Each structure stands twice: as structure tokens, then as C-alpha cells.
């Protein structure tokens, strides 16, 4: 039952917000709801018994409204519940327009995301998958920056097109289920689909996730969307939505079409690694801080995708760990980006500089987050990337080398950006900058603490996902004998 509660809290709170017009109250209620969700989610972590909920929904199609979770979904759920309080706090003490609608939409997004991670049924999964898009679309459209109309439209159509393939895939799988057709994940994973079918079905199912994550070359919606999106929107996008793609792939591809995955494994890994290098190289010359971070996020996520398709023990452990660590880091990064934009009025790097002279504490916190992002040891990023690269290494040394290059390139562009923004002489752009306010500390300090604590003591997260990682890594093992992977 707790799962149902977690799903419904944000939704109901969101509905309540729509009735209220007082901006401050709305934000407080939203925050309270997000914190309650967080507490409820954490209670899942500490209860031994798995919570689940299931009721027949659409009778004649055999579709159940079934909620449940395992280690993987739990990580995703924790990520969502953990980030949303911060995402909401990012708007605290700030002037915003149409507050009640904005926060209601944010909470609706949270609810839909929770639904995605909890759904135990492909149809339900798909419904929630699409539902996340609707509130987010409005957040981007109504509160976005320059060029929002076109960019949002592109984003929407792009992801929707991908989803359409997914829907087709789900219907196809549904038609394959023996006896009374059903869309339960458990039934899907028991299908024995012939290898040839799996090989094409892979792309049908993968394309939706590939666009959402995004995997090179399906990423082109991302930089412009991130650059244009309002801070809270981009936090949701980068922090949670990208992970939704990863989660979907883990749920759909590996248990259902292991042969197809194995066949395309190296192709996808190479694509992701190209994405890693490509995004990192591009990031170096970006002049807009937000675009730069968008590309950096793409590089990190691509590395996770590579790890996912290696699918050995360390890679998946690293992946799930990195999901959490990247989510926290990127939210912190975007928060600081918002502060810079707010204070300096621009995000163009040539116009920025010398902020450290005026706001030393901001510079220090920014540096800490940057260090987390470039995977310095004792930050969470390091643990994740170390495990991921270990996993890649087991597949091939070259995968590890190219995956590892992200460490070097990441250092190059992130530090370059840091220096251009914070160091150097004062620039006209950084005119009357003041240092952090209390609310900024309230947001940033916990985020940075999480980054550091996870880096120093990552064991709890490992224990949480241990069981599901073990199941997952066994998926591809028996397959290797049936069908050879595409050669490198």
C-alpha cells in the first residue's frame, strides 16, 4: 500500500495547489508533500517486506494496475524522491509567475515519474511514461527561456515519436503472450522470442529510451532544451528524466529480449562511447554555461549507457550508483547555474569572470560540485565511474580507455568553465554579485554532503541494489551461447 501512497501524495498535493493562490503557501505545501514522499520512500528502504499494490484495471485487456519495486526501481525512486524537495526548494524565495500552476505541474511530474518506476505492467508503464511528458511540456513551454516554443515543440515531438515505437513494441509483445494476453512484465520476461525477431524488436523498443537518455545520435533535442528550460524543468530533465530512459531499458530490454541486446551490445556501447567523447569535446568550446553543462550531462549519461550494455556485475553496480550520484550532482550544478544567471544576468562565459572575488563561498561550493562532476576520488562520481570503467574493462580494454577519457576531457572543460566564471579579473557581467543567501546554503550544502558521503561510504547503496544486480547480470550470460554479438 505504501507504494500507492507514494504515487498519490504528489498528485493529490498538486491538485490541492491548484486551489491556492498564495505563492509562499503553495511552495511550502509542495515542499511538504515532496518531503512526505521522501520519508515514505525511505520507509520502503528500511522495511524488509516488499510493498506492492495490484488491482484489475481494464478487465477485457487483462491490464492490472500493478505497482511494486525491486532494487533497481528503488534506486530510481529514491533518486526521484530525493531530488524533488531540492527541485522545489530551488524556487523558494524567488519571484516566479503563476506559482500554483508551476508547482502543481512539478508535483504531477513527480507523481508520473514515480509511476514509471513503480509500474509492474508494461501498459501502465507506458501510460506513466507518456504522462511525465505532459506536465513537463507545460513547464518548459510556459516558464522557458528564449525560443521555447520551437525547442519545446521539437523536444515533445522527438520524445513522442520514440514513445510511439515503444507502444508498438508493447502491443507486439502483448500479442505474443501465450494464453490470455497480458502486459505484465513478468509475462514478458517469460516469452521466448526467436532470435531474429529480437534483433529487430530491439530497435523498436530501444529507440524510445535512446531518445530519452539520450544516446548519440539521438541527442540533438537535448542541448537546446536544457539551455532554454527553466531551472526547475532542467533539473527534472537532467536529474530524473534521463534516468527514466536507463530504467526503461533495464526493465524492457534485458529481461525481455536478451538475445537482441546481446546482438547489438557492442554497437550500442560504441555509440555511447562516441557520445561520451563527442559531447565532451563539444562542451569545451561552448560559450553558454548551461549548454556546456548539458553536453557534460550527455557525456556522463552516455557512459552510463555504455555500462548498462556491458551488463556485468561491476558495470551495473556502478551504473546504479552513478544514477544517484549524477542526479544529485547535476541538480546542484544547475542550481549554481541558476544562481549565476540570477546574479550576473547572463550565462555567456565571455561576459563572466572574477565572481570569486565577490562571492567566495559560491565559488567554493561550485568548485566542490565541479569536482564531484569530474569524478574526483571521495566524491560519489568517482565510485560510480570507477566501477563503470572496471566493467567496461572486463569487456574490452579499449572501451575502458575511451570511457576513461571522459575523466580527462571532463576535467578540461569543467575546470575551464569554472575558471572562466569564477576566477580571473572582474568582468562587467559580474557587476553587483552578492554571495549566497541562507536558502542557497540550505539547498547546496545537503546536496554536496550527499555527494561526499556517497563518495566516502557508498556501501549502503551497493547493499540496496545487490540482489537485483545479481539477477540482471545473469540475464546475458546464458544468451552468449545462443547468438554471437556483432563483431567490434
Amino acid at each position, binding site marked *: 500500500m505504501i507504494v500507492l501512497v507514494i504515487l498519490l501524495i504528489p498528485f493529490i498535493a498538486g491538485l490541492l495547489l491548484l486551489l491556492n493562490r498564495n505563492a509562499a503557501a503553495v511552495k511550502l505545501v509542495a515542499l511538504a508533500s515532496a518531503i512526505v514522499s521522501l520519508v515514505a520512500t525511505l520507509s520502503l528502504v528500511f522495511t524488509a517486506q516488499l510493498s506492492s499494490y495490484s488491482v484489475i484495471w481494464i478487465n477485457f485487456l487483462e491490464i492490472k494496475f500493478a505497482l511494486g519495486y525491486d532494487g533497481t526501481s528503488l534506486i530510481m525512486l529514491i533518486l526521484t524522491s530525493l531530488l524533488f524537495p531540492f527541485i522545489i526548494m530551488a524556487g523558494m524565495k524567488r519571484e516566479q509567475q503563476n506559482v500554483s500552476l508551476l508547482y502543481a505541474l512539478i508535483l504531477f511530474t513527480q507523481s508520473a515519474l514515480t509511476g514509471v518506476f513503480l509500474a509492474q505492467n508494461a501498459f501502465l508503464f507506458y501510460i506513466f511514461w507518456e504522462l511525465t511528458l505532459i506536465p513537463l511540456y507545460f513547464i518548459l513551454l510556459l516558464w522557458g527561456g528564449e525560443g521555447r516554443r520551437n525547442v519545446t515543440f521539437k523536444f515533445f515531438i522527438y520524445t513522442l515519436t520514440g514513445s510511439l515505437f515503444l507502444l508498438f513494441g508493447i502491443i507486439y509483445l502483448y500479442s505474443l503472450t501465450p494464453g490470455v494476453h497480458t502486459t505484465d512484465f513478468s509475462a514478458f520476461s517469460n516469452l521466448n522470442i526467436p532470435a531474429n525477431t529480437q534483433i529487430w524488436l530491439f530497435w523498436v523498443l530501444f529507440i524510445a529510451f535512446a531518445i530519452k537518455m539520450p544516446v548519440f545520435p539521438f541527442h540533438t533535442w537535448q542541448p537546446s532544451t536544457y539551455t532554454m528550460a527553466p531551472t526547475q524543468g532542467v533539473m527534472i530533465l537532467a536529474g530524473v528524466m534521463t534516468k527514466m530512459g536507463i530504467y526503461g531499458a533495464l526493465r524492457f530490454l534485458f529481461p525481455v529480449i536478451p538475445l537482441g541486446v546481446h546482438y547489438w551490445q557492442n554497437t550500442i556501447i560504441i555509440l555511447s562511447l562516441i557520445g561520451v567523447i563527442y559531447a565532451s569535446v*563539444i562542451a569545451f568550446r561552448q560559450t553558454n554555461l548551461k549548454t556546456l553543462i548539458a553536453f557534460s550531462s550527455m557525456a556522463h549519461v552516455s557512459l552510463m549507457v555504455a555500462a548498462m550494455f556491458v551488463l556485468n*556485475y561491476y558495470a551495473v553496480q556502478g551504473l546504479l550508483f552513478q544514477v544517484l550520484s549524477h542526479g544529485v550532482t547535476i541538480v546542484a550544478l544547475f542550481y549554481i547555474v541558476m544562481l549565476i544567471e540570477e546574479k550576473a544576468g547572463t550565462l555567456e562565459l565571455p561576459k563572466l569572470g572574477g565572481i570569486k572575488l565577490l562571492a567566495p563561498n559560491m565559488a567554493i561550493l561550485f568548485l566542490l560540485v565541479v569536482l564531484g562532476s569530474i569524478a574526483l576520488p571521495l566524491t560519489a562520481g568517482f565510485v560510480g565511474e570507477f566501477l563503470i570503467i572496471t566493467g567496461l574493462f572486463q569487456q574490452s580494454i579499449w572501451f575502458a580507455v575511451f570511457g576513461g577519457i571522459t575523466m580527462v576531457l571532463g576535467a578540461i572543460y569543467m575546470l575551464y568553465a569554472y*575558471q572562466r566564471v569564477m*576566477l580571473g*579579473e572582474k568582468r562587467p557581467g559580474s557587476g553587483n554579485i552578492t554571495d549566497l543567501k541562507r536558502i542557497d546554503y540550505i539547498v547546496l550544502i545537503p546536496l554536496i554532503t550527499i555527494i561526499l558521503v556517497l563518495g566516502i561510504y557508498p*556501501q549502503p547503496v551497493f547493499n540496496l541494489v545487490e540482489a537485483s544486480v545479481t539477477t540482471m547480470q545473469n540475464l546475458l550470460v546464458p544468451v552468449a551461447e545462443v547468438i554471437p554479438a556483432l563483431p567490434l
Partner: protein
Amino acid sequence: MVNPIPYIDLAWLVPAFPLLGFLVTGLANKSLKHKQAGIIASAMVLLSFLVSLVLFFILRSSGQNEATITLFNWISIGGMNIPFAFLIDHLSLTMMLIVTGVGALIHIYSIGYMHDDERVNSFFAQMNLFTFSMLLLVMGANYLVLFIGWEGVGLCSYLLIGFWFKNPAYNYAARKAFVMNRIGDLGFILGIILLFITFKTVTFSEIFSQAAAFPVGAPVITLITILLLIGAVGKSAQIPLFTWLPDAMAGPTPVSALIHAATMVTAGIYMIARSSILYNLAPLTLNIIIVIGLATAIIAALIGLKQNDIKKVLAYSTVSQLGYMFLALGLGAYSAGVFHVTTHAFFKALLFLGAGSVIHAMGGEQDIRKMGGLRKKMPLTYFTFLAATLAISGIPPFSGFFSKDLILSKAFEHSVILYILALGGALITCFYMFRLLYLVFFGEQRLAGAHPHESPKVMTIPLIILAVLSVFGGFLNIPSLFNGDSKFSNYLHSAVVSKASEELSHSTEIGLILGSLLLLGLVIFFAYRTFVSKSMIPAKDGEPMSFFSKLIYNKFYIDEMYTAVFEKPFGYLSDFFYNKVENTVLDPVVDEIGFTTARVGSLLRKLQQGNMSFYLFAMVAGILLFIIFILIV
């Protein structure tokens, strides 16, 4: 642990003190007075030094060679078990003593040196963090903990080199240092991962005991050692990743002293010495190390000949000395390498602090062409600097003599050509060091309006202590030639497995020493003739030079080459990817799909223009097609 050694658990205090210092000075940045921060930071490092000393005696009295202190399990999943543990053995103790001892002196010196900088507190916080990272590096019981320190010192060097962050050139230098280190780190982490995959562990003791099962020259071991070597090359500023170190002069002088003497650059040497068992299994890698070390030693020494910035000269001398250490490592004489690290720590710290004292006295001037005649004004600095110069030149009985002679004799054992080249490098070192000494302290004062004065006690006392160490440090390891017992080498013997080699006969050694001394004497005399008697001053920046001088003066154009080969193409590649690939191929393709749909839509719309006859035709055609379809299928 077989027998727990009483009180050895105190080892965690060693890194804890600087960490505490970092936290206190860092968090209480605003409320702490400048002096207080310096005192706290210095005290913390000094405390670490004392604890290290206590540990030294504890270990010695226990009769055991090593002890592992596990704090907690850092990463423990599946077959991977990486504890956060410290290894206390003879090698790490040596390094700890160097790091904390020399580090403490540098900290104390900094109190004086940095007294008028407004961001002193941040400075000391970062210095403490630096010490902390370096301690993690040398104390780690496995490669991953070592790697924490490894990256940590990289970060701290980044922070400290760019300490005066208003200057873009300094920021560039800082970034360069970090990125070059990161390139090395990539090799290093890949090496660690390969170690893990091969041995299923990253703990030193377990790896080394398993490594015995591998034959000499096993490919996987060779690959591992090469990957680790890449890391060491980056951190210890060897060719081809050495250019960051001279640029690292951008930081305050004590930082340079810390980077060059006690921490950071010695990390690569330490790591290879620590992995001596692996390297002994990979002769190919050892040969590569010899080549890298020797090339670095000579090229850096050559560049040092023509530098006019007091700190740059010292920087290239460091690179060159690191080359010697690498040479020693490559020859399998790991303890000789570590011994040179030790003596080098003493005299190089002394040189930098002395240089700092000079710069301090000259009011920030670093150009040696503008100095001169400081011998009278700053006698204390002069004498300590002289001691260090003699030490680095390898004049007996100063410390550098013993360590360098050990390396040279090992080189001679290996091959005569190697010896000649190494000796040539040593002679060049001797020449430019005395050139520096003469230009700075002898002759007439050349900078008008400067009033050099002796530095305060807080700066000179560390100088004196270091001078004593530079002079007598060599006696730690008196070779059998002088009836000594090679204490230092023997002490390290339990932790570092040097390659067995034939000892030279005493007569050969004496011959070599006498020969090299003669040459050194000639070089010093020649330097004296040139710079003191003829009082020649190096050419000004714009003046024409011979081709060779120009080549050396411009550091063989290596920086320019790197800019042309790596930095610029990287920028071009970035632009190419963004402007050409992203914005003219990938993105437009996607957009084009959208536009095509829209275009097809508007094409199809033309069909829907309300022409009833057309509709009727279309309808009939549709029916026709439908019937035909049914007929055919």
C-alpha cells in the same frame, strides 16, 4: 595482521591532523586571524610528523616490518573488496617522515612568507589539504586509497598553483597541471583496474604475493606496469608530460617547495618503488623508464641552462633530478631512487625556500639578471643556499653526493654509455646551479632601488634546519666504500625489492668518483670564471642568440608544440563537432525529418482542395485498387 603491534593504530592520526587543520582553517576562514591560521596549520603538520616519528619507533621496536590499519570498508561488492586501509611499513614511514617533516618546515616558513597576503587562511587550508592528500597517497594500503591521494594532490596543486586566481596565466598553468596530471591518472586508474581484473584485489600485499606466480615478462604485468608508469610520468613530470611543472611556478613559492620537494612529484617515484615487485617482472617497462628518466634528466638540465627566472631554473632542476630518480628506478635500484627522493626533498626544499627568501627580499622580483650581490645582505640565506647548491651538484660530503653517486654507479654497472650520459647531465646541473648561485649572490647589486634584507626568523630557521639536513642527510646511507653499512637501503629492503646486481669493485668506484669530482671542479671553476670574474649577465629577452641557445632558451619549443599538436586541434575538433557535425548534420537531419513530414502534409493538402470530381476519381481509384488487391491476394 599476524601480531597486532601496540599503538600502531595511531597511524590514522597522521593524516587526521592535516585534515583537521584543513577543516578548521577552511571553515573558520573568516573568523581566524592570519597568524592563527598559519600556526594551526603548521602545528597540525608538526603533530603529524611527531606521530610519524612515534610510529617509526613503535614499528622498529616491534620487530615487524609492516602493519595494516583498516579503518572501514570503502567499496565492498561482489568479488571487489577495497578497504580504506593504511599500510605502515618502512617505505611508507620514510615517505611520511619526509612529507610531514619537510612539509612542517615549509608550513612554518609560509607563516613568514605569506604574512601579508589577504587570503592566507585559504592558503593554509589548501596546504594542509595538500599534506593530507600526500599522506593518504603514501599511507594507502591499496592502490585505490593511493589513488585518492594521487588525485587529491593533483587537485591541491591545481588550487595552489592558481592561488592568485586573478591572473589568467596562472589559471592556465593551474589547469595545465591538473589536466596533464589527469592524463597520467587515466593511465593509472586503468592500470589499477587491470590489476584488479588480474589479481581480484588492489591491496598491495595480496597483489605482491600473487605476482610471484607470474613469469618475468608476462604481457599482462608489462601492460599493468606501463599503465601505472603513465600515471607516474604525469605526476612526476617526466617526458612527455613534464611541461606543467615549470609552469607550476605560478603558485606562491612555498607551494613550489611543497610540490617539488616533499609532495606531489615524488608520488610517481614512490608508486613505482612500491610496485617494485611488479616492475621487476617487466624488464621492458624498466627499459622504458630508463629511457624516459635519462632523456628527462638531460633535456631538463639543458633547458635549465638558459632560464633567467630563479624559480624556473629550480623547476627544471627538479625535473632533471626526477629524471635521475626514474633512472634509478629503471635500473632496478629502487632504494637508490627513494634515497635520492629523500636527499632531494631536503636540498630542493631548501633551494626553493631560499629562493623564496630572495624573492621576498627583492620585493617580488624573480629575474636573476636583476639580482646580484646578495651575499652580503642576506648571509644566512646565502650560506644555506650554498649548502643546497653543493648538495644538488653532488659535492662530497653533502647529501646529494651520496644519493647521486649511488645512481651513477648503478648506471655504470648497467652500461658505460648510460653512465656517461648521466654524468653529463650531472655536470650540466652543477653548471646551471652555480650560475644561479653566482648571479644571485655574487657581483654587484643590479636592481636599483631595492633594499634587500635578511628574512625574519620564522623563515630562516626552517632554512637552517633544512641546510643541516642537506649537508648531513647523506650520512643516512653511507655505502660500504666508506665503511658504511647502507642503513637507508637496508631499512627499505623489507618493503622494496631491488633488482640484484653485481657490486662494483671499490677501486672502480673510487676511480669514477675522483673522475667525476675533477669534472665537477672544472665546471664550477668555469662557472666562476664566466659569471663572477667576467661578471657576464645572461642576454636580455630580445637579443639575438645562436640557434642552439635559442632552442634551449625556448625550452625546445615543447610547449608550442603541445599547443599546436593538442590544444589547438582540440579546439578545432570541438568547433568542428559543434558547427559541422552537430549543427549541420545531426540536428538538421532530425529537423529535416520533421520538415519533410510537414512538407508531405502540405503536398497532401493540395489534394484536399474541394474538387468534387477529383474526389470522385480518387474514390473510384481506391475502390479499384481495393478490388484488385482482393483479387490478387
